[in-house]
């Protein structure tokens, strides 16, 4: 890694942070950098302190670090708050409007408001001035930013596009005239790489759902899950999807169960609070053996918790939600690429095993932008496991929706198919789907459903190992912690330590033997989780009798950084 720079844009909600951050991230990615970007925002539409952080490198980067090299401060609070992270970095600020109390050596004043007013006649163009200034201070060419601005403001018409470009150019020229050597961090563009995407976790889940042929999505908006619903809705007409905003999460899951029962590939999207309302319908999906994909995007709870921040606090909840015992499946992607492929896999598992399947993400993964190779759609398989009309015509016996079979899976027909009636019941039922409360039937049906879980367990792949397979310290992570953990492995390995990562994406049902084998090699196992009680390590203990040596836990609403993890590992004398 020759280049590793961290830029942070700080300001209040409503100041255009998102637009500025996105445009800069896209520009830097277009110039050939590997870009990783995160957002930190509060639950409000105006005001508050928000940041957009962009890390660029000439090698792949999947995590944010805690130090900043360049701070673009859009308000004075940004300077007060982030100065400690700055180290020997620089601040880009308009000192005409923002008072800088601290004495900072490396201040690069750019009169953004004045330039915007002088050049474009309106201070709203100051964001584009700031973008041009940042590109100038990094001593890069302006062309990529111009290209991105054109695309960003395409819908607003030629005049607006031109004004933004003029503003960016003026900001750029100002830095060329006043700081001809740029700031201390100058970089050379690696050159465009056409096969890389800049994509966040929610968009990737949406892409996965569309690739899997989702036909119906019903949901109630809830941060941080809403991005998936929005993404699918934006492309619904093109892909023949019906998207319905339900009156509440209870309706959302019940609606998709109806649609799924009648044959439509269906999903819902929510976060912990909404999922709480779905609990009863989760059991309904399982007892009626109706396929359902639930995108559960975690945020810190309980109750409203920290609506815009991140946590992996709902694993045990997803594992245990709803009354009774029944099969379910939990997948947890660690990167947008895994979001894409695991979402398509979730639909296939749901259809094959006729169970609810979770794709568990969190605010960090949902909103973070990753630079990744194009998703390979040729790997996507759509497997419906439905009886065709022809198959039904050749069947001699009356159709039984819950026919007892050796593997517990009953061949699935749809209501409306000629010659069959399809009946489902939330009560315990017989093979036809009619209420049956006899003890003998109960045991048969319970065993049938639970047996599917064991068949699925056989199919679940082993966790992925990053680093050397026989390291003496194994870091264990699940879902969104992949990026920071992989970087910790890189840093520590470079420093001569023997460390690897076992990254779990297939959480439940856990393939026990392969997991035990993977985790028996290391002298020390450290489970790293974005929660306060070590929920995944509890699962390892209960399901696979694995006791981890140590925990690294973070539950302040923020995601892990490699520095945070290494500091705790040192503190706990693991390394």
């Amino acid at each position, binding site marked *: 890694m020759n280049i590793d720079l961290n830029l942070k844009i700080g300001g209040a909600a409503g100041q255009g942070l998102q637009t500025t951050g996105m445009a800069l991230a896209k520009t830097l990615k277009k110039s050939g950098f590997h870009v990783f970007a995160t957002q930190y925002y509060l639950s409000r539409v105006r005001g508050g302190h928000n940041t957009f952080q962009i890390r660029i490198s000439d090698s792949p980067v999947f995590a944010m670090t805690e130090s900043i090299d360049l701070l673009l401060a859009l308000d004075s609070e940004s300077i007060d708050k982030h100065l400690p992270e700055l180290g020997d970095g620089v601040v880009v600020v308009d000192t005409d409007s923002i008072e800088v109390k601290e004495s900072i050596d490396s201040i690069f004043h750019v009169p953004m408001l004045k330039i915007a007013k002088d050049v474009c006649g309106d201070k709203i163009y100051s964001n584009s001035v700031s973008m041009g200034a940042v590109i100038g201070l990094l001593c890069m060419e302006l062309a990529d930013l111009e290209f991105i601005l054109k695309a960003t403001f395409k819908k607003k018409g030629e005049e607006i596009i031109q004004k933004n470009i003029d503003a960016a150019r003026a900001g750029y020229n100002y830095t060329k005239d006043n700081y001809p050597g740029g700031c201390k961090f100058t970089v050379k563009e690696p050159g465009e790489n056409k096969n890389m995407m800049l994509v966040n976790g929610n968009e990737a889940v949406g892409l996965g759902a569309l690739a899997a042929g989702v036909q119906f999505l019903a949901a109630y908006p809830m941060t941080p899950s809403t991005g998936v619903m929005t993404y699918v809705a934006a492309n619904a007409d093109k892909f023949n999807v019906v998207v319905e905003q339900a009156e509440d999460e209870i309706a959302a899951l019940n609606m998709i169960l109806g649609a799924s029962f009648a044959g439509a590939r269906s999903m819902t999207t929510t976060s912990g609070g909404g999922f709480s309302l779905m609990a009863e319908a989760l059991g309904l999906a399982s007892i009626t053996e109706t396929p359902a994909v639930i995108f559960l995007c975690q945020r810190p709870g309980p109750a409203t918790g920290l609506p815009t921040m991140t946590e992996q606090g709902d694993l045990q909840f997803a594992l245990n939600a709803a009354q009774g015992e029944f099969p379910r499946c939990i997948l947890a992607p660690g990167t947008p690429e895994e979001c894409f492929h695991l979402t398509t896999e979730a639909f296939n598992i749901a259809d094959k095993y006729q169970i609810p399947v979770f794709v568990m993400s969190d605010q960090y993964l949902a909103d973070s932008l990753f630079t990744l190779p194009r998703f390979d759609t040729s790997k996507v398989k759509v497997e419906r496991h439905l009886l065709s009309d022809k198959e039904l015509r050749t069947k001699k016996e009356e159709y039984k929706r819950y026919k007892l079979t050796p593997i517990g899976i009953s061949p699935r027909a749809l209501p409306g198919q*000629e010659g069959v009636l399809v009946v489902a019941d939330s009560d315990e039922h017989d093979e036809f789907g009619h209420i049956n409360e006899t003890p003998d039937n109960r045991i048969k049906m319970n065993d049938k459903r639970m047996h599917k879980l064991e068949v699925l367990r056989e199919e679940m792949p082993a966790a992925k190992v990053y680093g050397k397979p026989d390291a003496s310290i194994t870091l264990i992570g699940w879902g969104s912690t992949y990026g920071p953990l992989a970087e910790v492995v890189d840093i520590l390995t470079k420093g001569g330590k023997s460390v690897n990562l076992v990254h779990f994406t297939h959480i439940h049902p856990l393939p026990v033997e392969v997991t035990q084998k993977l985790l028996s090699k290391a002298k020390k196992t450290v489970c790293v989780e974005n929660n306060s009680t070590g929920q995944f390590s509890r699962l390892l203990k209960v399901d696979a009798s694995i006791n981890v040596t140590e925990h690294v836990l973070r539950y302040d609403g923020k995601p892990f950084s490699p520095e945070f993890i290494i500091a705790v590992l040192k503190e706990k004398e693991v390394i």
Partner: protein
Amino acid sequence: MVSIEDYGKYETAWCPGCGNFGILKAIKQALVNLGRSPHEVFIASGIGQSSKLPHYLKCNAFNGLHGRSLPPATGVKIANHELTVLAVTGDGDCYGEGGNHFLHTVRRNPDITMIVHDNQIYGLTKGQASPTSEVGMKTKIQTHGVFNMPLNPLSMAISLDCSFVSRGYAGNIPHLTKLIEKAIQHKGLSLVDVLQPCVSFNKLNTFKWYSERVYDMEETGYELNDRVKAFEKSLEWGDRIPLGVFYVNEKQSFEDNLDVLAQGPLYKNVPKTELVNELIDGFV
């Protein structure tokens, strides 16, 4: 030709003399009269004595959760709008536990026929007050009598501009049959609130009580699309209780708004996995 025998005969878990039998008979007869085969019919239900109904006739059925007959019914209609979709529910199920779904399904207006077994009491849990119980009715829970005002389902539906609002009576099966036929034929959400005595627990609103009060409106004396007049009529309750169709508003159904359904049932569409590459281009 579809016959009543096609809909089968089942043993039920209902009390002898229950109003549910009349409703079951009317539903079966209405479906036969409309020439619908059992495999073309889908019934969603919630929980309660009413919601056991789909188990007692041949049809496709989804007997779901308490209060939640409408969301799965809506989902089924979206996935396969060629099915004749009924939601069979009760006063507790639909107006109590599932009240929110009722409000919003009316707004959505899917082509579903809602048949609400309204016996003004909770039967399955053995005799507690329901949202439509009369003020003063004493139960083991409401020991001082019901304080809360009863909900008027018809007035509520009309105020929300439900596209078809009607009331039937389990004691008049031919009338109820015709009403259900009209409701099924109506495109959009149709409400059939069915007055139904609970012979075990409701000692107030008995067959005798209803029979002395109900009358067939035949002619309403106002245009059926007159919402204000219909609302006024829906307030009539007491010594005389009108039966029949109160309000009809032929408007766009939920499915009409979904262009994608014009090409056939949603569930039959082929996935466009390859097209995702075009979206991916936008991220590059």
